[in-house]
């Protein structure tokens, strides 16, 4: 387990910024961590273990240092992975974190929930509600009508274009969804 270096931190923050925008400061700076046995809440920080980035509270980090590197499997919440070529991708485990701070949201109709959960991208006729002000390639968090976060992805069209689109067009490119817990448990 090690802290992230410069480039890695930049990559992670960029990716997060796509989804949460200004709320990034909530995640990084002003976070109150109630984990850990101390009474005072610490802060959260990022740690890297085996090419995976974890979002952990500091007290947990301190106590995870006695675990050997090859025996440490996971700590806190995993937010993403670095690929072999050095790119950073967010994974589904950070959904809770993103959903709490997301700027751009899309709500799905019940009929098209299952399609999204199978890994398909979102089409216009499946969308129930959409927030204003989405630009192309913004990060979007997908919810069900009952406000249960289902996954996240990339906006393919801006909100303005979305209204003019034909019903079969793709609105959101799929990145990750909670169905992966069942489909791809081994790859997480």
């Amino acid at each position, binding site marked *: 387990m090690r802290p992230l270096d410069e480039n890695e931190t930049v990559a992670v923050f960029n990716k997060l910024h796509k989804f949460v925008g200004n709320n990034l400061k909530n995640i990084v700076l002003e976070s109150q961590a*109630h*984990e*850990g*046995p*101390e*009474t005072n809440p610490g802060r959260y920080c990022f740690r890297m273990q085996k090419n995976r980035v974890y979002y952990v*509270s500091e*007290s*947990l980090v301190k*106590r*995870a240092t*006695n*675990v*050997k590197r*090859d*025996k*440490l*499997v*996971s*700590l*806190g*919440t*995993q937010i993403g992975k670095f690929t072999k070529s050095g790119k950073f991708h967010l994974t589904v*485990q950070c959904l*809770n974190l993103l959903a709490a701070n997301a700027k751009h949201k899309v709500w799905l109709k019940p009929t098209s*929930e299952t399609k999204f*959960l199978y890994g398909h991208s979102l089409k216009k006729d499946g969308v129930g509600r959409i927030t204003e002000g989405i630009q192309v390639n913004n990060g979007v968090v997908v919810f*069900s009508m*009952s406000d*249960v*976060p*289902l996954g996240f992805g990339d906006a393919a069209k801006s909100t303005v274009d979305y209204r003019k689109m034909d019903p079969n067009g793709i609105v959101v490119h799929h990145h990750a969804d*909670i*169905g992966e*817990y*069942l489909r791809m*448990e*081994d790859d*997480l």
Partner: protein
Amino acid sequence: MAGPKLSKKKGGSAANPPLKKKQKALPTLEKETKEEMIFNSDGSEEPVMLENPDEEDQGMDSLSDMSSDGDDVYANDILQGSDDEEGSDEEERGAQGDSDSDVSDFEKEARQIDEEKAREEVDAEAELELNIKNEANEFSLPTEEELEEEAQRPPDLSNLLRRIKEIVRVLSNFKSLRLEGATRKDYVDQLKMDLISYYGYNDFLIEALVELFPAVELMELIEAFEKPRPTCLRTNTLKTRRRDLAGVLLNRGVNLDPLSKWSKVGLVVYDSQVPIGATPEYMAGHYMLQGASSFLPVMALAPQEKEKVVDMAAAPGGKTTYIAALMKNTGMIYANEMKESRLKSLTANIHRMGVTNTIVSNYDARELPKVLGSNSVDRILLDAPCSGTGVISKDESVKTSKSALDIQNCAHLQKQLILAAIDLVDANSKSGGYIVYSTCSIMVAENEAVIDYALKKRDVKLVPCGLDFGRPGFIRFRGHRFHTSLDKTRRFYPHVHNMDGFFVAKLKKMSNMKPTSQQSEDGEVEEEESELVESNDQEEGVKEKKQFNKGSNEIATEKVIKEKKQLNKGSSVSGAGKQPPLKERRKKKEWPSREEIAKNREEKRQALRESKRKRKYLSFDIGDVDYLLCYCVGQSVHEAVILTDSSSKKTMLCIESAAKRMRLYKRRLSGCTREYDATSQG
């Protein structure tokens, strides 16, 4: 008997007819009395008896005809009556010549047909009686020939089942229902064989179950093992409430109910239109599919907020996530799992349920005290790997795959794990100091025996689990006698509580000290050592030395050193060198020469000094003391002096040899120094 019978006859009694009547009446009477004897189960006369009713009626008819009572009922039967009259006459008088040969041919045939019919009926009745006799009150064990025959034929399941039920019935009321000459053992052996072939168990497991349960309960248990337990789920209180979740699932078409009054988060699923493990709520981490019995150890553990908790065998993560939910994501959990293949599901479940306070590691749980440090954790959950005999309803292969060796191996591993767990916990923690040990097995060797072992080896005590339903564990079982507090443990059975077989025990660590320092090559030596050293068994240990040393009463009266070690690391250094002397002592070998012994001792002392310079205390290993004692004994010691420094609770043994000059012993005892100059005595 003859009188009342006669009066029953419809025919009156005139003088002449009575002669014939009597002649006929007599055989019919005889036959009638014989008929009465049917009910006395007298088989030999049955054919004769049963023929009579037919002939009796006809006899009556003939009688009535003869007496010409004018009974209309019988008036129509003239032909029959006369036929029979002749037939019975002929029977009485033997085979006399017939007056009319033609008529007699017909009559003969008719008679023969009648006789055949009567015979068949008799046989049928006899057979029926035979069957009834067998199945009513007297059940007899099959003989060896019958068993051999059965072994050759394909198994007759209904017969087996019937026999099983019969034996269980007999065993439950043995005094009244047993057969002469059949011992209880015979019945039980036959029952075991039948159970093995009917339900598909192996010898060992059936043997074990028979030891645990009486016959009727055994049947209930085995039947319960054949059926699956109801599917349960646990609401994830980090994300939702049971009420809301139940509402959402009902909308999806799931038929469910709250689990029981002892759980506020459990739901039991009767049936479901959608796959219950694949709903969007499941994927969003609102609930976890978990057996009802798996709720119990976490409820017993009762983790508080802001505590440090370790789950030593955490996969697939149901209990770990429940702990996190109870702690509301505060504090810290170490989730450890030894098998790599199960780690994926553990991490996936942790993330799915939104647990953020967990560190997942991949150690062998016995190493955890070294990794995390001894006495560092508030609570521990040890859901030990076991033989799985309680979850036969989930996994039928357990019926045939477990042997005594498997159980022994499991028990050995569990004992090591529980000691590691106890060493991990901090007895002085403000809110904790608890260990919960649970298995999904019903074997005593894996449950009560392990807890008893832990009670002997460490300073822990059993406390109530907080689960008032559930049966108390065994205090005594066959040959074993366990500590009396073992009735605070709880056992759960499928046929009583409708959940998988389970065992839960909650221990509280009283102090961080260990009664012994264990360094041994194998378990046997370790146990012998512990017997020697434990204060309870001091006399025993000294007695053992007596065996080696004849006539050294002085040594016998001296006490063995009581040791308190702060860390067991000291012992690991000193213990290593002590094995050969111990072995020597046990094998009654010759002692090495005095100079060698002295040299060895001096070297060891130097080594000890080096390693313990920092710690500023002296720790004796039992081997050290034994060695010294034995050496001195071999030199015919007259005196031995033990000095105790009460402030530091260290004991020092100083031995003076009557014959030889001893060296100066300098020992530094935390803060005070004592020097003894042992000189030779006059």
